[in-house]
């Protein structure tokens, strides 16, 4: 498997000449008067693990169901490997889906569940059983072939569902909240297992999730959705570090947001008037004086100290709450005007006299630490 190109390393989306594997072209899905998916266009490349991320009702599951063929788009088209999927029934598409509820057939054994797709395709029984055994070994369920789904734990059921959706070696695997029903520890294990299987088999994955942490860990790229539209597409780092809107900044990780007005666009540093006073950020092309903007600052970019800080932006406040998380601590700092700011700081080993409740502190961040958001 050495010569397999991993999308995670090749990053084909950065190359304009690369042909996308899945093309979603202006897809809209209306339910009555409501646009569940609103004019979405998206290119997904071979070998990617693409996450559609958004809150409930943002249209991500509907988009996935249109890819699988369970819903018909009101307008627009989907192409998979250059072939138009319009009018192609779900059972004839080169896709398979792993359902959020797993949808295992309760009256069939694990083995029969997994072999189902092969047998319907007309694969000989002998061969189907051999491939099923191999697939069960891949998901580490070798000894469970004759069990019924209700005799398995949640994690085991999840792996049966994964095995069943992979057995036909689909070109495109669609996963609907694949880790939703698992507890935290099992999720983390399974996340890495998913990545391992995806890289082993070279299948393109499209994952739907509402969990931003899951999306960050799993994906080569993330598409953030809101109200039926894609609001930002990018690599996890891009989305986290340079969100393009207040919605994305707020949705991915935690963030402090200041609403303000551009004061005067200086050549080097830009000054923005906010309720906590003027803040300085890096200039952004195309901003006009007096324009209303938002400034987003991640909690880990903010320094916290008892001593005055030397930074472009400094404020003072009182520590209202401290949450000790082990590797880091989260501070809720009340500023002089009464608003709260979230600050995180790494914890040192055997730290003597750490900052605690009700202490007067100085906080500060550099101009580069903040993102300017125009919407």
């Amino acid at each position, binding site marked *: 498997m050495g010569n397999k190109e991993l999308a995670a390393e090749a990053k084909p989306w950065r190359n304009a000449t690369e042909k996308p594997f899945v093309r979603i072209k202006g897809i809209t899905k209306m339910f009555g008067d409501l646009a569940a998916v609103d004019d979405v266009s998206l290119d997904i490349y071979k070998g990617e693990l693409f996450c559609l991320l958004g809150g409930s009702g943002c249209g991500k599951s509907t988009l996935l169901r249109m890819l699988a063929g*369970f819903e018909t788009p009101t307008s627009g088209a989907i192409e998979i490997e250059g072939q138009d999927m319009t009018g192609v029934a*779900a059972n004839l598409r080169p896709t398979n*889906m792993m*359902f959020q509820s797993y949808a295992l*057939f309760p009256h069939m054994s694990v083995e029969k569940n997994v072999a*189902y*797709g092969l047998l319907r395709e007309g694969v000989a029984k002998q061969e189907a059983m051999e491939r099923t055994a191999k697939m069960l070994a891949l998901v580490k369920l070798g000894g469970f072939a004759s069990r019924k789904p*209700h005799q398995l734990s949640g994690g085991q059921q999840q792996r049966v569902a994964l095995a069943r959706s992979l057995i036909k070696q689909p070109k495109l695997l669609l996963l609907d909240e694949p880790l939703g029903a698992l507890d935290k520890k099992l999720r983390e294990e399974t996340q890495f297992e998913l990545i391992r299987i995806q890289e082993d088999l070279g299948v393109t994955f499209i994952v739907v999730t509402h969990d931003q942490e899951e999306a960050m860990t799993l994906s080569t790229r993330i598409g953030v959705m809101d109200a039926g539209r894609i609001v930002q597409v990018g690599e996890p780092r891009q989305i986290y570090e340079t969100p393009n809107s207040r919605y994305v900044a707020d949705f991915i990780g935690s963030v402090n947001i200041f609403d303000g007005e551009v004061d005067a666009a200086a050549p080097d540093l830009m000054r923005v008037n906010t309720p906590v006073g003027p803040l300085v950020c890096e200039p952004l092309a195309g901003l006009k004086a007096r324009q209303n903007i938002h400034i987003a600052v991640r909690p880990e970019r903010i320094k916290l100290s008892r001593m005055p800080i030397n930074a472009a932006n400094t404020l003072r406040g009182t520590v209202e709450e401290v949450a000790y998380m082990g590797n880091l601590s989260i501070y809720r700092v009340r500023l002089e005007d009464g608003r709260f700011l979230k600050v995180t700081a790494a914890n040192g080993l055997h730290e003597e006299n750490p900052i605690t409740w009700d202490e007067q502190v100085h906080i500060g961040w550099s101009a580069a630490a903040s993102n300017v958001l125009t919407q």
Partner: protein
Amino acid sequence: MSKRRFFSKRNLVIAIPNFWLILFFMVPFLVVLKISLAEPRIAIPPYSPLWEWVNGSLKFNINFENYAYMWQDSLYINAYLSSIKIAAVSTLLALLIGYPMAYYIARSPEPRRSILLLLVVLPFWTSFLLRVYAWIGILKTNGILNAVLLWAGIIDEPLIIMQTDIAVYIGIVYTYLPFLILPLYANLVKLDDTLLEASYDLGASRISSFFRITLPLSLPGIIAGSMLVFIPVIGEFVIPTLLGGPDTLMIGKVLWGEYFSNRDWPVASAVAMVMLVVMIIPIMVLRSAQNKGAEI
């Protein structure tokens, strides 16, 4: 750690249904069992007592001749076999008609589903007897069905349906259809749509998905519904009497004849006892199917 008392609240609650069963099921059952072991007499009541005092000694009269008689006269065995056949054929017919109906109702969107369910149980608002009489009006030689078919020019002379087995089948299937549809509907409505989507997704056609997913998962409903038709139809008396002819042989009719025409209560009781045994088998099948259904 109190000792369980006999008159505890718990026991009292259970006592009411138990009392009901003993009084209205166990006692009559034992009376019928007793009569089936007696000899017929021309007296009131028309059978010999189970025990009597003869010259100062207690004499028990236990007579198995009634059961033996049932083997000797082929009428009874034929009546049982014919009842089972009629019950089996009607169950199958009801299933062929009822399954699509139950499936359609279960797949219907909500406002329509309630209306359809209401329509299924609507006939219960009219007396069963009246509804069977109504079928006489439809099926008789100068009845509604023949009038319509003659008027439409489909037939040249009226069909003879009344007083044949066909009329009995029509009456039974019509009467018992709701008993099949309701349990089947209750099963089908629980079917998870994503299972069918998973089946399509894995390459199965709609027809194949039906036979591999829907049908096996609805098996408990099929069995429950079928038994609710099969069991009472074996003992059915009103429909074959009103719609059937002299050739329609069913155990319920034979039983009635023994009691009221021949006044041979002991043989009639023996027929009833054997009928009970015959019905226990499908009831056991039903119970095991329900237990299996509960597992999934």
